[in-house]
């Protein structure tokens, strides 16, 4: 499940939509500025051109008043926007065009829009050039663009901000449902309901989530109940059987062979009992019925286990050597961790010869339990599988499966290796 959620580029839903809004607005902004500039420019030039044509249309009216060379000279002087040039000294263009010219009294050149018109005056051909400065256009376009830029900027902030807050409000039932799911605990007796919302989709979601929660919980409860009941139902006949055998053992007239039969039966009952206990234990772990919030010292747990198993070690004249760094602590469930160490150590005791030396080594990163012995005749990978048994196996093949499960629940790795004539179990993580 965890791998499925963490894929590296996760982001919050709100950020997801906000970033997209931001990108879209920026894109529109980038495209619109040049487009706007071009359009404005064209509109302005068009207006100036119309003006120039209108002025050109009025020229014949003025032309009628020019009767002499001195009239012409006066006209040239009075009308600054007009240039009257003999037709043979200039190239004639039919439409208006833009040209850069120097303006007296000002530095640099300015853009002018110019329209030419051919006229005949006093028996000569002239070209009249009507010009209009474009400097106002530059100012106007700049101002308009500045206003537009500010507007866009405001819109950007507004859109992203409003979107963020609206989304936050709109998605709040979703976050409530998420919170509900995150805090959903199978162990808790009451199933709270995600908060109510007027939005239909969220209502449906909440309804489905609630149904799922109730269903899962019911399944969990019935499984738990089944495992516990099955164990109880098995445990009781076992207890009766064992007690009856013990009473039978008290009979004075028992023969030696009858006593030995009873002893054999005892062993079988023991097997059944442990099998039953282990299965119940595994199902409990699978139902995650344990809390993992204790902090404990691994060295101390190992010492307790060693003490509890000392009788078994004595029975085989085995010795235990324990090396541990001081205060190697771990958080999790202490009693489960103790079962893990117990199973590994008991396994080591059972699978090594009389008089062997078993070692436990605890460092900050590793806990290793090793015992001398012949190489395994079963597959190395399958030793943690349930009901995998080697030769001379006395247990039910669940001990290492339980150990593996406990390690996994503590986010630890349990590995097996055979090195220099020793079986080694490493707990690391």
């Amino acid at each position: 499940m965890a791998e499925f959620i963490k894929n590296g580029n996760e982001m919050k839903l709100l950020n997801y939509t906000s970033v997209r809004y931001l990108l879209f607005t920026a894109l529109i902004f980038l495209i619109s500025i040049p487009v706007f500039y071009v359009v404005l420019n064209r509109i302005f030039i068009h207006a100036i051109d119309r003006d120039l044509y209108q002025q050109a249309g009025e020229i014949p009216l003025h032309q009628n008043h020019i009767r002499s060379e001195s009239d012409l000279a006066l006209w040239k002087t009075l009308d600054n926007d007009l240039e009257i040039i003999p037709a043979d000294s200039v190239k004639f263009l039919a439409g208006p065009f833009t040209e850069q010219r120097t303006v007296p009294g000002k530095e640099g050149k300015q853009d002018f829009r110019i329209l030419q018109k051919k006229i005949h005056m006093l028996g000569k051909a002239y070209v009249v050039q009507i010009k209009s400065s474009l400097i106002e256009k530059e100012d106007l376009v700049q101002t308009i663009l500045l206003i537009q830029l500010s507007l866009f900027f405001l819109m950007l902030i507004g859109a992203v901000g409003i979107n963020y807050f609206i989304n936050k409000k709109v998605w709040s039932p979703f976050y409530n449902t998420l919170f509900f799911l995150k805090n959903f605990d199978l162990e808790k007796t009451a199933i709270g309901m995600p908060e109510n919302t007027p939005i239909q989709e969220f209502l449906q979601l909440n309804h489905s989530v609630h149904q799922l929660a109730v269903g899962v919980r019911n399944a969990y409860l019935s499984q738990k109940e089944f495992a516990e009941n099955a164990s109880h139902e098995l445990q009781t006949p076992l207890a009766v059987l064992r007690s009856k055998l013990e009473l039978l053992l008290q009979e004075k007239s028992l023969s030696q062979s009858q006593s030995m039969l009873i002893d054999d039966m005892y062993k079988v009952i023991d097997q059944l009992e442990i099998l039953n206990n282990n299965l119940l234990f595994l199902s409990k772990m699978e139902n995650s019925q344990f809390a993992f919030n204790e902090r404990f010292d691994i060295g101390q747990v190992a010492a307790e286990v060693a003490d509890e198993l000392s009788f078994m070690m004595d029975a085989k004249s085995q010795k235990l050597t324990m090396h541990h760094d001081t205060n190697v602590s771990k958080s999790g469930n202490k009693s489960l961790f103790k079962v893990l160490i117990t199973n590994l150590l008991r396994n080591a005791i059972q699978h090594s010869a009389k008089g062997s030396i078993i070692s436990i080594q605890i460092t900050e990163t590793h806990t290793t339990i090793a015992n001398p012995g012949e190489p395994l005749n079963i597959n190395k990978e399958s030793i943690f599988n349930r009901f995998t048994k080697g030769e001379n196996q006395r247990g039910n093949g669940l001990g290492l499966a339980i150990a593996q499960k406990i390690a996994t629940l503590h986010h630890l790795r349990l590995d097996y290796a055979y090195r220099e004539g020793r079986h080694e179990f490493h707990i690391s993580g």
Partner: protein
Amino acid sequence: MKLLIIEDEQELAQSIREYLQKEDYRCEIAFTVQEGREKIECFDYDCILLDIMLPGGSGLDLLEELKKDKKMDGVIIISAKNSLEDRIFSLKSGADDYLAKPFHLAELSARVQSVIRRRHLQGSNEIFFHNLTIDVPAKTVIVEGKEINLTKTEFDLLLFLVTNKGRVISKNAIAEHLSGQSALYFDNYDIIYTHIKNLKRKLLSMGSHIKTIYGSGYKLSD
């Protein structure tokens, strides 16, 4: 000594009664919570053996009622639920001991006697058997006025034999009692044989009271 067994499994309850009666206990049986409640209200018991899952309720409720009424009866919870939570809860609620089913009757007998000793013989917690005196808290053993030096295992073994005197205890039950582990994990019972041999030697004249029942176990006989 009066015992009450509150256990819904009749066969098991009768086995327990039959085994414990040999120790001169008067045993009564209740099969349901209600029956148990009535008996507890009317009589005082030295020790109550209480199952958890019972018809008509939980044994743990009965335990809480018992403690609320400040009854002095010793309580041993016998449960098929070998769960840590139940064990912790039982002991917190004031039970004297917790024994998971299936148990050896010899083990139960030893626990019952331990509870009764702790509750009744304040101060002098001694057990006598012929010329043998065992001081349980001090862990000392005196045979014919002479103190005997025993190892911890030998002492536990002797106490187990004495609390089940006159009855055959299987090697299986001894192994489980001494190791705290299922006897299943032992390759053989040589270790028990060795401890019994040493114990018999150390107990001098009393050593001959420990009888070997071939094929099944040992017995401390008069």
